[in-house]
């Protein structure tokens, strides 16, 4: 879809989101002194539901906020947590910033690469795991730290990292 395309925008009133999320958005846009303030939360919640921020999501969010698709994309590309392509069911984010680096964060990352057979920002063929090297996640005193989707895991070792991956694997097969 072209950046400024309007023709492909959904019809007013129709939604690509679940009824729950659509209702949440209806409320969110009224919360702030200006509608546009709801943009970043909406992008995050859309990503949580769809797995990434799709073109259709961008179009609908733009319409809900009365801003252009270009405006939405402009903001979307600034924030590192927002993505426009799907990732694995579990996005393993390994911090290698200074406090984690001093406690083996880079080894945890290398270990994950090895165990999952993928590199930075790649996804396993079964779609279960993605791997990402990230900047400080605010868990420095409990380093090395990893975030899987939104869940924090602290003070990891290669062994406990293995156990953690196994845990997610079995969670997925349930």
């Amino acid at each position, binding site marked *: 879809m072209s950046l400024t395309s309007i023709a492909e925008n959904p019809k007013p009133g129709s939604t690509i989101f679940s009824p729950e999320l659509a209702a949440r958005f209806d409320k969110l846009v009224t919360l702030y002194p200006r509608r546009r303030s709801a943009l970043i939360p909406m992008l*995050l919640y859309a990503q949580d539901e769809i797995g990434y921020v799709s073109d259709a999501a961008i179009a609908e969010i733009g319409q809900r906020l009365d801003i252009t698709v270009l405006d939405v994309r402009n903001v979307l590309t*600034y924030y590192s947590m927002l993505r426009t392509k799907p990732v694995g069911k579990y996005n393993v984010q390994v911090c290698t910033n200074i*406090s984690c680096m001093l406690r083996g964060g880079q*080894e945890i990352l290398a270990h994950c690469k090895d165990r999952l057979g993928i590199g930075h920002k790649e996804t396993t063929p079964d779609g279960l795991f993605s791997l990402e090297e990230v*900047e*400080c996640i*605010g868990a420095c*005193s409990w380093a090395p730290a990893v975030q899987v989707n*939104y869940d924090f895991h602290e003070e990891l070792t290669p062994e406990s990292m293995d156990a953690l991956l196994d845990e997610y694997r079995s969670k997925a097969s349930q």
Partner: protein
Amino acid sequence: MPRLVSHPDEVKVVSRRFGRGATNIDRYIELDGYKAVRQAIEKGPEWIIAEMKASNLRGRGGAGFPTGMKWSFVPKQSEKPKYVLVNGDESEPGTCKDHLIFLHDPHAVIEGCIVAGLAVGAKTGFIYLRGEYRYLLTIMEKAIADAYAKGFLGKGIFGSNFDFEIISQTGAGAYEVGEESALMESLEGKRGIPRIRPPFPAVVGLYGGPTVINNAETIASVSHILNMGGEAYAKIGSNRNGGTRLFCISGHAERPGVYELPMGYNLKKMIYEVAGGVRGGRQLKAVVPGGSSTPVLLPSEIDIGMDFDQVGKAGSMLGSGGVVVLDETVCMVEFALRTIQFYQHESCGWCIPCREGTDWLKKTLTRFHAGGGEAKDIDHIQYLAENMLGRTFCPLGDAAAMPTIAFVKKFRQEFEDHLNGKPCPYAKQQELTLA
């Protein structure tokens, strides 16, 4: 769940409810919660600001600006609505204290936010958490809903004729958004590009209205200050640096963790006694005293009190309270590289000295660390960093340049050790320590 630590030297003020179930509003009330705000309603804005000034509380976000004074800058009369904005973006590497506040004591943030609103005449507060803290937003949202249910938020709070609303949200991954003006941009649904100042946020801030922006720890300190009295709070700390601070000790300490210690507490003691010394009895090589942007200190420089003035006198900064301990196995070139990598990644790209400067520093240090360094590179790194200082649109450029300059100045020998095609001479040593 982040591990809680304790030490007899701690003075628990902000952390006194940690681990005590205070996310529950009734429990929070039992532990002296929502007392300060009732008193604040009764006694009014002048009293609040006088107590805050007496407390000598200085902003815990990094710059250490006196909070009472900041609040007093907000004009009394304003055509546009005024706002309180709680900065919970916490992204400075080495810093994880606001994490614990949101996790264990969300109502203290709410209470402080309401008091700030009463002090400056704002009717709306925003609590902005970094995007990675989604699970903490859930806790914060529940706390806010409970406060509304009790009539502590909304119309006529605590049966008074004041109204106060709080809206909380997260960002979506961006260090720069912790910078106050970029934070306002983000909250307005835009890219986190900083704004030019003046006008300062206290005069023209969020949606053009006067805005008080404070760090989450600053805000969480407010109710304790009013409860014990500003002067009593000031007395806990050192000269012109009131109260306590959450110090996030990380890296090669034997017992890393977040410890609440009086302002002015000796750094050497903090490392060797509170945090149990350097892991495995190794030698200390360096300390980053206040988050990744603060210039590194040598072991001979750490016999200092940890407050804004004393650390400043020692040539560094108290910053965000992230104390990073480095032992003898660390390669300082690698450490400098990892630090600049972060700033390069987080530079918003708005101004050239920061965007290009961080990129060149990263490229040079990468080549250098890999063994491709030349003698002139060492001076180039320093020259480049020095020329970024004070020439950028927001302080992120300085935050990248200052530590780089200190690494080169204080560890020049290690940079020289990397020359002549020698890739990191410390790599072997590190492998040994990780085995």
